């Protein structure tokens, strides 16, 4: 008789399953999902908890702060923007589940700022962003694949590609350290491969190249061997082209070994907040190191955008320390507002994508490099300025002046940028 009961129970659990699935009914759709006469709904899934969350979990709050500032001043084309935030813990499975919720349940108009290459790839594929024509604005990864319009026709990245970054570093080395011995620590996957391609194009020969597998930087003793190898090869300049935890591990061991060459920190790993969290002496130890950014320095209150962002942060994001993550979030939000405004009153997904491809040259934005969006490329910023870290870990332009290099992800040369950023619209509002 056990069998009979079991059948009943299977049936019972099936009913529970079915019941829970039927709970939500789909509301009637407007002309374009997520847009009404007075609102626009955007969605973001990002690690709010878990190992990758520190720093990044400030991005959605910063975005909301800027959107609320715009909303309080009339919105964009008369519409107010809301942002739905989901936590994916940096796990692709969760990222896909959350993206599906955003698209199918919260009915967002577009995704914005998804973070991490694996998660962003998984979302794009599984949620069929291109087949459904859902825009994925300003994904937070420099993986050059997302620049490929054919493979990811609705995704836009804001960060320059890793290849561009390597080419810019190569140019800097050529100009300042010609004939010197160069060392490199890099991550042994697509991230590092993109970079190696860039360095090769720049014609850099390394005296020592140390690859590390992603995750191995956390294994006891591993980062120590990097420093031993570096000491043996004795390069004059060492480039740390890894994630923040690897950069912190390398610097931490160098500190312990009292080893201090001239450091150059890649933009991904050069997050002083993470480095200082690993060891509080490190920002002081690495003072004088070189770093890269495409946005103005968060400490530079003489920059009109930074000044405006600081004010917005103080009013709409109370109690949150203003840093590079806040700048990153607000920059994405600012650009999204510009793009939405440019797409016009009859806002559609297609129209938004077309507006970014066609009109980005005229978008106001805080970045110090030209925006590279076009009908063939979906990479935003096209270069970097190189500056110096001070003893507090803040990256500052040398001599108070941003020297910006610009290039492409292909074989193009690296040139000093003559780009004049368009003036900020009054009060940083879309008008």
């Amino acid at each position, binding site marked *: 008789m*056990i*069998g009979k*009961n*079991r*059948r009943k*129970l*299977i*049936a019972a*659990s*099936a009913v*529970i*399953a*079915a019941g*829970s*699935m*039927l709970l*939500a*009914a*789909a509301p009637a759709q407007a002309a374009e999902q997520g847009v009404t006469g007075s609102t626009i709904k955007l969605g973001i899934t990002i690690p*709010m*908890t878990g190992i990758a969350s520190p720093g990044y979990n400030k991005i*959605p*709050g910063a975005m909301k702060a800027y959107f609320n500032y715009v909303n309080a001043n009339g919105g964009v084309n008369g519409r107010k923007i809301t942002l739905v*935030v989901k*936590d994916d*813990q*940096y*796990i*692709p*499975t969760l990222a*896909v*589940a959350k993206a*599906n*919720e955003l698209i*199918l*349940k919260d009915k967002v108009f577009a995704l914005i700022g998804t973070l*991490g*290459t*694996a*998660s962003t*790839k*998984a979302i794009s*594929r*599984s949620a*069929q962003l291109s*087949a459904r024509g859902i825009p994925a604005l300003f994904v937070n990864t420099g*993986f050059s694949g997302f620049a490929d319009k054919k493979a990811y026709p609705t995704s836009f990245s804001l960060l320059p590609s890793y290849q561009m970054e390597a080419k810019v570093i190569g140019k800097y080395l050529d100009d300042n350290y010609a004939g010197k011995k160069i060392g490199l620590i890099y*991550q*042994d*996957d*697509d*991230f590092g491969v993109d970079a190696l391609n860039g360095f090769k194009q720049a014609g850099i020969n390394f005296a020592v190249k140390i690859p590390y*597998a*992603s*995750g*191995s930087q956390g294994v006891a003793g591993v980062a120590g061997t990097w420093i031993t190898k570096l000491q043996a090869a004795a390069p004059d300049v060492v480039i740390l082209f890894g994630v923040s935890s690897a950069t912190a591990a390398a610097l931490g061991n160098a500190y312990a070994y009292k080893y201090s060459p001239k450091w150059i920190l890649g933009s991904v790993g050069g997050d002083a907040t993470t480095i200082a969290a690993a060891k509080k002496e490190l920002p002081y130890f690495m003072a004088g190191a070189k770093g890269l950014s495409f946005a103005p320095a968060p400490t530079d209150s003489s920059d009109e955008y930074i000044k405006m962002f600081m004010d917005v942060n103080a009013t709409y994001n109370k109690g949150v320390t203003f840093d590079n993550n806040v700048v990153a979030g607000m920059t994405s939000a600012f650009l999204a507002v510009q793009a939405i405004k440019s797409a016009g009153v009859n806002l559609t997904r297609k129209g938004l994508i077309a507006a970014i491809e066609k009109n980005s040259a005229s978008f106001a934005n805080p970045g110090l490099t030209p925006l590279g969006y076009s009908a063939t490329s979906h990479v935003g910023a096209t270069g970097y300025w190189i500056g110096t870290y001070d003893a507090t870990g803040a990256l500052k332009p040398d001599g108070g002046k941003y020297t910006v290099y610009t290039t492409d992800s292909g074989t193009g040369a690296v040139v000093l940028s003559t780009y004049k950023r368009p003036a900020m619209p009054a009060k940083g509002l879309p008008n």
Partner: protein
Amino acid sequence: MHKLKSNNLLRLIGFVVFGFFLFYLSNAIDELRVYQGATVAMYVVAISSIILLTGYSGQVSLGHGALLAVGGYGAALLRNNLHAPVWLSFAGAVLVAALFGSLLGVTAARLSGPYLAGTTLALAVGLPSIANQFKFLGGEQGLIFDIGLPPASLGETFSQYKWFFWIAALTALIAMWWLQNLLRSRYGRTWRAVRTQSVAAELAGINTARSKVLAFTVSAGLAGLAGALLSMTISTVSPSAFPLSLSFALATGAVLSGVTTLGGVMIGAVTLVAIPEIADAFTQRIGASENVTANLPGLMVSGLLIVVVLFVPNGPVEQFRNRRKK
């Protein structure tokens, strides 16, 4: 003998009817539910794999995520490099994971209790990051696992998620049908005998070590199948898709389902998918802060786990059955 046969037939009919019910359901519910349904089917297979191992053969695994990873990578490699059809890549995932499980089972048969739990836990921590060491496994970003669009004959409005759901639900139904038959067979009885009283089982002529290795192998094969399903629903496979938290979620699902019986496996699977949503709806209603939103699902799962262990230690199904017997 006759009765046994008719019981088998009834069970088969039950499965087929349930299959038709799911088919009907897939047309009646919206796309998000269909997608979640595919995830439920994946959890059903994964949790049944743990129930088989722990409930029937008495071995503990806290690292099933690693076995799912083996299956997921196996399926993706077969599909990407040999252009295997979907069913073959799933079969390949089962075989690769079973092979891996048999090797692991040989080690596991020498360990028991906390030692075995610790070993499997270490595996869950270490194994997925091996993908970072080899180029053909795609590093941190992993590999694409694309099962392709649904056949055109199903019509233009047939969504990808429905296709995922059909494949996952059919796979789960077949796997469950096969598994419940296996558990009723000599092997199932042998496993239970070893779990309940290994010395007595040995005296009765059962080779306990071999029986344990076999259980581990079958369990790993099922886990591999779940891994392939998981990779299908996210169209990719990468180390970060198999975190430690996945292994814990599966173990939790098994306990909620009732670890000694397959009958409640849907309970655990549905709970794992439903809880984050319930938590979300709740926090939205009361307008809670982001901190609460982020941590509530974990709190709810843990709370439920404690309640279940305290009040229905063998799971709700076993409890219900015992009540009926009295």
